[in-house]
């Protein structure tokens, strides 16, 4: 794919550029959720300022946010946070060298960092799935 556009694939590099594994797509989703959370965070700062206008203004805003579309959007923010946080734990551990294993000579059968990294990734995504289900229960079943 890189050869098709002279080696510069730009934003398409977020979709595919050859031999992308699970962890690469997790990293891309990490960036997408990060941008979404940043946008929500900035909006949150402005919406929180309604607090200073008193009880009536605040309750009016909360009534607007209780509408189904906003409620679902809030759930997506929660899911984005859960994924970003748990994948972020994996990235921090990898950045600090904890899940990479000791360096070894490349003798067959090769041991690569994915041998350690993939189980950790799956465990963290399993925990994320549990939180997503719990959040779904709280948002849509137990009442919010």
């Amino acid at each position: 794919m890189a050869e098709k556009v002279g080696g510069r694939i730009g934003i398409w590099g977020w979709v595919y550029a050859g031999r992308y594994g699970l962890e690469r797509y997790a990293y891309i989703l990490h960036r997408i959720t990060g941008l979404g959370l940043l946008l929500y965070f900035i909006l949150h700062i402005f919406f929180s300022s309604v607090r200073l206008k008193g009880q009536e203004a605040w309750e009016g805003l909360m009534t607007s946010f209780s509408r189904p579309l906003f409620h679902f959007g809030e759930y997506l923010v929660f899911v984005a946070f859960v994924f970003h946080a748990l994948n972020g734990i994996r990235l921090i551990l990898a950045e600090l060298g904890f899940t990479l294993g000791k360096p070894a000579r490349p003798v067959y059968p090769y041991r690569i960092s994915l041998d350690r990294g993939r189980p950790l990734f799956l465990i963290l995504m399993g925990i994320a799935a549990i939180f997503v289900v719990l959040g779904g229960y709280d948002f849509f079943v137990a009442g919010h």
Partner: protein
Amino acid sequence: MREVTLWSLHLLAGIIVLVFLGIHMGVMHLDAIMGVKEPTSWGAVLSRGKGFLFPFIYLVILAAGLYHGLYGLRNILLELEGLRRVGKPLGWIIFLAGLALFLYGAYIVIAASSVS
């Protein structure tokens, strides 16, 4: 500041946000499971705004969250070919925008602690 220092602060801010925003998400969005009654009601918001602990935690989340998010945004933007050439001015624009947001957010937190 050296890039490695900025990156290390990004990781540290991420850990801070993980802990404090995780608690905030639990209280606000897992309230039925955690037994918190109506966290967004006026009374609950009022009681959380008073005292020292919650406003302090909100300021910490504000600072760490803004730094972590805006540094991430800066890194994503700097990967774009056209913007790499204006890396330094872009960094300053993002820093000033973050500072403005932090000052506005801090004003809201501090002013809210005096609203009755």
